[in-house]
Structure formats: C-alpha cells, structure tokens
C-alpha cells in the first residue's frame, strides 16, 4: 500500500471514530466481533423452505421454473448425455457442447452419443452450449450456486447462450445459509485472513434462471448478456 493511501486509511478510520465519539475499539470488543465473524450466526431464515423433503424438492422446481428455467430428470448418470442431446435437438441447437473439466461431468458416457461433439475446458467466444455441475441449489428461490475452481471455470456459466446444469437432487437444500455451510465444510483451509479459515473460491455465482433485462420499457426479455436458456438435468440420487 502506498504511503498516501496509508494516511487516507487512518484519516478515514479516524473520522469514523470521531463521529462515533470514541477511539479504536477496546481489544475485548474487537475480539467479540471477530468471534462473531468466525461463528457467523444465522439471522432470520424464512420458514417457506423448512418443509418435508418431497415438498422442498417440489418448491425448488416450482421456483426455478417460475424464473424461466427448465428441468429434466435423470434416473442415472448414464442417461445424462442422452438428455443433453435430446434437449439440444428439441431446441434446434447444434449438438456441440463445452463441458466443465469436473470428473463428475467429464466421466459421463459421452461417447455413446457420437453425434454430440464434446470439448472440455473454459468457455471460448464461439461456444454456444455449456454443461456444468451445480454445487448446490436452494428451494427458497430456486437459486443454484456455482463456485469457481480449476474444474469449474466461471466463463461456462455466463458466456454460452445455453447453459445445461447437472444438479444432484441430494444437493438441493432449503436456504442460502445451508450452502455457505456446505462450502465452509467442504472447502475450508487455513488462511492468514482475519477469521483464520478460507473457504470462498475466487468467484461464486448464484444463478436463478436465464439472463434477462427489463431496461426497454420495463418489460422482461430473456437473453440479455448471459445464457438465454438454463436447462437443469436433475439427477435423482436420493432414495424416496
């Protein structure tokens, strides 16, 4: 940090403290606030997603459909390439896909669909369809979480006109807070930041349906800059 900015920092913090009529927080108070960051207590979570499992799944689906997503169900992983090909055919979209380099997607039996041309990696300008795994989704609003990482390039979520999402039913939870806790549990590592644990990937996109705009005459049109279509293949990996 440059010297001038160090001064700016102390002047800004100083003005805040003067406004609050106090000096820097006493250590006891500051450590209490740090503890709160580490324990991250939940605030009020709407009751709408705390419902029996079958209803929770139905709520997720109703919400993503309300937000213009479409959903197909797969009974097994082996069915997924066929469902991708069928969906593209039904929409008259050329059968060329860019898939995430995630083992759960790359290892699917794509070879059984020879008409489907499959490339692996991040999205490039010419890519029109992506296939991406979803980390978890929430029933509360239908929202799907896509954390970035070497296996999960962000460009796949945003550049192609069509995003096909593979979501495991077991990864549908009630509320956003549950997904943050999944991330904390599954991706936490030691960190020299203020809380001592890092779990946030570089980028986490929360996606609730296809891209849209209401900038022209306040009327919603789909397909502004991001995907025009978000099609979810729901893998039924839970026993009823």
């Amino acid at each position: 940090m440059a010297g001038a900015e160090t001064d700016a920092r102390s002047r800004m913090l100083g003005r805040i403290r003067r406004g609050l009529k106090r000096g820097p927080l006493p250590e006891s108070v500051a450590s209490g606030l740090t503890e709160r960051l580490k324990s991250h207590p939940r605030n009020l979570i709407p009751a709408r997603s705390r419902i029996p499992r079958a209803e929770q799944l139905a709520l997720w689906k109703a919400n993503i459909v309300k937000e213009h997503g479409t959903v197909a169900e797969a009974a097994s992983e082996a069915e997924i390439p066929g469902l991708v090909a069928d969906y593209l055919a039904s929409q008259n979209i050329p059968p060329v896909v860019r898939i995430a380099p995630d083992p759960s997607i790359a290892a699917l039996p794509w070879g059984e669909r020879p008409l489907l041309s499959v490339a692996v990696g991040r999205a490039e300008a010419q890519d029109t369809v992506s296939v991406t795994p979803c980390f978890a989704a929430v029933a509360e609003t239908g929202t799907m979480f896509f954390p970035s990482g070497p296996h999960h390039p962000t460009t796949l979520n945003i550049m192609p006109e069509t995003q096909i999402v593979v979501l495991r039913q077991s990864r549908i939870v009630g509320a956003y807070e549950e997904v943050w806790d999944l991330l904390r549990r599954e991706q936490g590592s030691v960190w020299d930041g203020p809380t001592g644990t890092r779990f946030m990937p570089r980028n986490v996109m929360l996606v609730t349906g296809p891209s849209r705009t209401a900038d022209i005459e306040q009327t919603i049109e789909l397909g502004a800059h991001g995907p025009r279509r978000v099609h979810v293949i729901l893998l039924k990996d839970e026993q009823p």
Partner: protein
Amino acid sequence: MHITSPAFKQNARHALADANLQRALSNARTGFVEKRARAVAALPEFEALREEGRDLKNHVLAHLDFYLDTYAKAVEANGGTVHWCETADDARRAVVEICRAVGARTVTKGKSMIGEELGINEHLETAGIAPIETDLGEYIIQLRKEPPSHIIAPAIHLNREDWIEAFREKHTALPADRAFAERKTLIDEARSVLRSRFLAADVGITGANMLIAETGSSVIVTNEGNGDLTQTLPKVHIVLASVEKVVPTLEDACTILRLLARSATGQDFSTYTTFSTGPRRAGDLDGPGEYHVILLDNGRTSMIGTEFQEMLRCIRCAACMNHCPVYGAVGGHAYGWVYPGPMGSVLTPSLIGVDKAGHLPNASTFCGRCESVCPMKIPLPKMMRHWREREFERHLSPSAARFGLGAWAWFAKRPWAYRLAARLGAGVLGIAGRKRGRLGALPLAGGWTDGRDMPTPEGETFQARYARLKKQGLV
C-alpha cells in the same frame, strides 16, 4: 457530472411538459409498485427482515472502523488490493493509474452508482481510455450522452423509439434499413455488439452491492449477467465501492439480499448474485489476474454521528423513488445529480453540499410513502426536514423557500401537476385524492395558511417550527 440540482424547479417544469418523458414514466410507475407489493405479500417474514436489516446496518455503522479494517485485511489476504480513497478525485486517480499500469485501451463497465458519482467515464476518456457501459440501460444512455435517471433502471425515461434511433445512429456497421420488429431485436443487437467489447476489454469495472468482512468478497447483483462478463474476462477487475457497503458475514449478506430484490424489482432474487474474492487462483482457467477495490469515502464518514447517519443504511434499492409521487411526476433528471428521488434528496446535499442541492429536500409532499417502503427503514422525511432546518439556519433559501415550500409549493400552485402527482401516489395522497375536485381551491400552500396541517409523519408541524425558529430569530 454537471450538477443542475439548483435548477430543480425549472427542471421539474420541463419534465412535466415533456410528453415522451411522461409516457415513459407511466410504464414504470405501476410496474415497480405492483411487483414489489406482490413479492412482499408473498413473504410473511418481510417486516421482520426489515427490522433485522436495519439493526444489522446500525451495528455495522457503530463499528464501521472495525469492519472496514477487517474487510481490507481479508481482501489483502486473498491477494487483492484495497485503495482507500477520501475524495472522488483520489478515486478517479487510482482507477486511471490501475488502467495505465496495464496499458488499458478499453474498459468495460458494469452498472455502478459510485461510477456515476465519480464521473469516471469522462475521466477515463480524458486519460485516453475508452469506457464501455454494458448494462443495457447504461449503454443506451451512454450512446445518448445523458446521465441515468433512476438508480436501478437508468433508462426508465426512454421509449422504444429512442432506442431504435440511437442504435441506428451509432451501430453504423449494420445495415441502415434493418427492421426492429420487437424489443428482442434491440436486445439481440446490443448483445452481439457488446459481446465483442467484453472480449476486447483490458479492464472491467463493477460496483458492489455489498462487501463482506468475513471473506473479503465483493457482491454484485444483476439480471443481465453483464457484471459477470465485465469482471471475469479482462485482465484486471476494479470494484468501485463506498465505505458503507460492508457487512460482517455471508449470513448477514443473505438478510440484505432477501430484502434487496423484492424492494427493487419485485423479484424474489435477482438472476445473478455474484461473490468475487480476489484475483485468479492457481489452476483457475479464467478470471482476472488483478483484483482492486476502490474504497470511497467522499463525505460519508463525515455523516457518522450526525442526524444523517441513518442514510448510510441505504442499499440503493430504489423503492423510495418508485413510490414517490414527485419522482413519478418529474423523473430522475430533474434532481440534477446522480441520486434522484427521496434518497437523493437526503444524500445529495451531504455529498455535494447544501448550497448546490438545497432545493432537493423541498421536492417532497411529505406523504411518508418512501419511509414506509424503505427496506432499511430509513426515516427519509425526517431527514429531509433536517436539511430544511439547516437551510433556514444558513439562510440559503430564497424568501419563498424559507416558508418551507420551495419546489413543493410549485406543485401546490399548479393543481394539474399536483393532481398528476397525487394520482401517481396511488392512495398515498389519499386526502388530496378524495378531495380531488376541490384541489383547485385547496392548493396545499393555502392549506398552511388556513391552519391546516399537512400529514407529516412525525415531529412538529410547520407552524410550530416556524414559530420556534422565529422566536430564535432564525427566520
């Protein structure tokens, strides 16, 4: 941005006489109000969330030094850089330096009210760097070289013909006689023109709806996905954020997010809510190599400890202007600077000075609707009154405005304008509405002299205040 706030009255007069503007505004009025009402009615906990949101932001403001410092340390521990900027000038300089360091020629921009506050586009242009707005609403107004007129729907004052005209004029590489059959044709054209800009840009600039102290993340909320392309594709991502945007944890961010989209567009959740945490990491196939946060003060820390501190709870949802009869009648440009409507009437004098924006707190009927819909429960009418009191004290008002009327009196003296405003208030101005036939004989200014109180949400009446100020020799 050129400030025309002192000319609010003239601006308002022009706006009311502008038939195209009135047509555009009529699209907006009912849309936002009805959509919000439906979304709020569908969430029984909405009121409880508002209370939590207010308390949360109050907690943050009471410990803002701690949370900013913690946030900045978290950003740095993620490999990002925080630029503490006291003034708009400092922020502009920092942005240009970052761009120059990577030899940037073009910069894509997501929608950012801080960007407007800085006038960053003009500044980049002066430095020989081309800024390209990518939010469709911001894009069209950039083509038309005008400022936004609303904080979440910047082109709300335009009609479809305005888009067609601008696209024909500026997209000269396309056939001049092409047809624009529907709105979708316009959107497709903008999408393809802007996609090549996204791919070519050296730097991407976005705003931030929130900053998270726990993780060092910045959060943007969009429906188009333009913000994500802006921050993912270029080499460098610059976040423009003001100090009051920080919240402690991801859980706290969720509370705000549950309020934000419902209050803004009436959606349960926006299409894209994205958390960015530092630059590209080892093994990543995409993402920016540098991540910078411009942490802007520009007068905000001086609001702490004053009667305007509560304004720093604002999450820029625009519900207050969507429900404001004055905004609905005159639109955003009449307010003359970046932030229009009730939140602008309170914030603008804090940021650019009461001498330049002293009229704005008068641009109110004090109907109280803004406060009643504000997700952060900001007492906007009370703060507008505080500004008016300061104006009295500083004797900045012309004699008519010293009676506490100002622009509002202008409405009151013009029953047709007032009726329009009242109609837009949709039940808000119930009293005026019910007596609509008598409004001509009941201009509100007359209401004062008749000993009739305007329904002010709280505090003393005008007469009481006037009497008190007079006794104190202030008027």
